[in-house]
């Protein structure tokens, strides 16, 4: 397959709802997972015989297991509230990227096989047989949803397209039509312990060389311990933090926070990945199996607290699902939330005066903050609703002098996905990723022009990787994006040398 041409739409000063361009993204689909990738995680290697009946049966199975799916497939009234809310629609104009139209790809099949009206009057209610064309459309358009839940904020019934996308991906996996990128990564976690397939010795090597660099830079023995039994805190962080830029600067930030506060901590090779792509493919069993590594590592190392690094979907899984999937956590210190976000930890230390900053170290930056979708709309930090918005901002304000907000319709619960979430962060979907970033890029351009913003902080490994790749298509410097703990790292006071 020839690589699709990557075209960045022009940036407009005000958001404009595009004119519909039917089929504009019909060409965009992911590589299909090969037999080895599929079978490694228990899915059929290729499209099974009798796939149509098996897919319908799988949908029936999911309808029994997930109330949300059942309610969401029934409740939509086609009111249109969601139609202009998806970043992929705004960036591509393809009507099938309107959340309701995306949902309808599954809903029409649900109606045909599971509702009385769809069985008897399919034309009337828009019910359709599951044909090969419909299946191919699923593969195309459910892989153009980043499961960011922006549409669900605006739906009068809270219909969450992410749940419908996950169900569709689960069905496709079960009949042998998996997505290569996500499923290959899940295989790597099971085999090596992290998404990048970074083996233990390489990880140790990386951490030691970071320690050496830090010694040279600061004159202090800032440790990044690995598999340290009896440490108080185990940090689970996206594996990108170990070697990719700008991610690694945040990892250094965590290390400096623990150093300055004097909290013994450790990383783990067994749980060297916070990311959990089981979420993206909607598979409960895979999500649980991946998360189980964290429980095993925590028990083995005898730690008292679990802290999660900067990663959006990982924080959703950790915050919202770990207690369900791998709890109860009765072996951990009950005085701290389980799990705790690294931002919660840093924020607490700031509040208690246990760490302090030389804010001028970040004076070269005018900072803005990109709320990551899974943190904003699927989790929380701190004790009150919305803490996930306030705490990272409070840290930025503590560590930097110049902070500017982007347009109110593009932050907090209304934040736009970076365009690379949900298992889409792969090169063959780059055109989609670039176009999906449009709403964020427009909001960013406005604060770049008005306030000279030159640093967009975020707390998600996927956001960081996606923006690093996509920013240049919009004529921005790729180094504009970085972590909140990158700013912390620049400014934290480490005490006398």
């Amino acid at each position, binding site marked *: 397959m020839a690589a699709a041409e990557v075209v960045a739409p022009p940036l407009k000063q005000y958001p404009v709802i595009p004119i519909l361009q039917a089929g504009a993204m019909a060409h965009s689909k992911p590589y299909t997972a090969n037999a080895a990738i599929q079978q490694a995680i228990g899915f059929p290697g290729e499209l099974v015989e009798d796939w149509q009946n098996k897919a319908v049966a799988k949908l029936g199975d999911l309808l029994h297991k*997930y109330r949300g799916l059942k*309610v969401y497939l029934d409740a939509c009234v086609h009111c249109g509230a969601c139609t202009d809310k998806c970043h992929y629609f705004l960036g591509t104009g393809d*009507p099938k990227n*309107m959340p309701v139209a995306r949902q309808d790809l599954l809903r029409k099949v649900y109606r045909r096989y599971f509702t009385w009206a769809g069985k008897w009057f399919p034309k009337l209610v*828009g019910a359709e047989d599951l044909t090969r064309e419909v299946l191919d459309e699923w593969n195309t358009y459910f892989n153009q949803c980043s499961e960011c839940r922006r549409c669900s904020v*605006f*739906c009068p019934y*809270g219909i969450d397209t992410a749940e419908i996308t996950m169900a569709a991906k689960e069905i496709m996996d079960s009949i042998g039509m998996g997505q290569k990128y996500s499923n290959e990564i899940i295989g790597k976690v099971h085999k090596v312990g992290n998404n990048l397939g970074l083996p233990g010795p390489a990880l140790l090597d990386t951490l030691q060389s970071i320690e050496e660099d830090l010694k040279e830079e600061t004159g202090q023995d800032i440790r990044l311990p690995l598999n340290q039994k009896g440490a108080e805190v185990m940090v689970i962080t996206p594996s990108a933090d170990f070697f990719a830029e700008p991610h690694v600067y945040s990892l250094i930030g965590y290390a400096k926070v623990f150093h300055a506060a004097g909290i013994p901590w450790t990383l783990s090779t067994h749980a060297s990945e916070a990311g959990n792509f089981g979420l993206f493919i909607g598979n409960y069993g895979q999500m649980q199996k991946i998360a189980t590594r964290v429980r095993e590592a925590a028990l083995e190392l005898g730690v008292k607290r679990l802290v999660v690094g900067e990663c959006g979907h990982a924080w959703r899984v950790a915050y919202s*699902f770990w207690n369900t999937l791998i709890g109860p956590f009765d072996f951990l210190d009950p005085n701290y939330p389980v799990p705790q976000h690294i931002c919660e930890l840093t924020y607490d230390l700031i509040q208690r005066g246990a760490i302090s900053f030389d804010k001028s170290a970040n004076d070269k930056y005018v900072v803005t903050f990109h709320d990551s979708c899974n943190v904003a709309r699927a989790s929380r930090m701190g004790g009150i609703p919305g803490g996930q918005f306030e705490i990272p901002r409070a840290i930025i304000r503590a560590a930097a002098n110049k902070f500017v907000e982007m347009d109110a319709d593009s932050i907090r619960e209304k934040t736009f996905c970076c365009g690379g979430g949900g298992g889409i962060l792969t090169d063959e979907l780059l055109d989609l990723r670039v176009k999906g970033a449009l709403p964020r890029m427009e909001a960013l351009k406005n604060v770049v022009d008005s306030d000279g913003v030159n640093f967009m902080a975020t707390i998600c490994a996927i956001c960081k990787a996606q923006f690093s790749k996509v920013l240049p298509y919009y004529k921005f410097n790729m180094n504009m994006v970085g972590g909140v703990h990158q700013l912390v790292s620049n400014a934290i006071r480490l005490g006398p040398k």
Partner: protein
Amino acid sequence: MTAATIFYALLFYAAFLLCVIGLVYKIADYARTPAPLKIPTTPAPTTAGGVVLRMLREVGLFESLFKANLWIWLFGFMFHVALALVLMRHLRYFTEPVWFWVAWIQPFGIYGGLAMVAGLAGLWARRFLVERIRYISTFSDHLMLALLAGIGISGLLMKFVAHTDIISVKAFFLGLMRFDWQPLPTQPLLLVHLTLVALLIAIFPYSKLLHAPGLFFSPGRNQADNPREQRHIAPWAAALEKAKP
């Protein structure tokens, strides 16, 4: 006893039965199906009391829709509030003596009827005028609006143009409720109105009108945001756990 009386008596019994059976089945089905994971759309309330308030705002004010689109909210809210008012006004045909508050709202109910039709007209216009909504509209979306508009307009016509023998209509419905059938007037406008209403009642649980009970079962809205504090586990997930070595 005219043929029309028998036909409409049976029609309303059938419609009512279809509605109740369908709704009980659907609601029981929603209630039985577990929600295995905590998926409230955050920021979400952290307590059950907070969830009740959130649901009240969604049901009573259409909070999320308000955030999404002012036009849809305006027409949708106008239609639903007006419909509620009209339904309450109609209680006088089913109660003897008429409850005092039902008597009190009678004059407002008329405005309700007008607002209901106006709201429907606005919603329907969007299906033609807004390209995105035209794209997602199905034949049944238009039919549903036609059905509701037909009910509203036939009702208004009986109020403002061609009055019907409302005393007999009331006697008919009270008779239905007491299983003591009374003759139904056969004014065409009334029969149109009643046919459409019976149809609406009958299809309620088998159509997108399920959005009404559905909202109460939507995990994105009805779950409290407390996964760290309380372990949430569905029966099938617990069974999965036990099956492990």
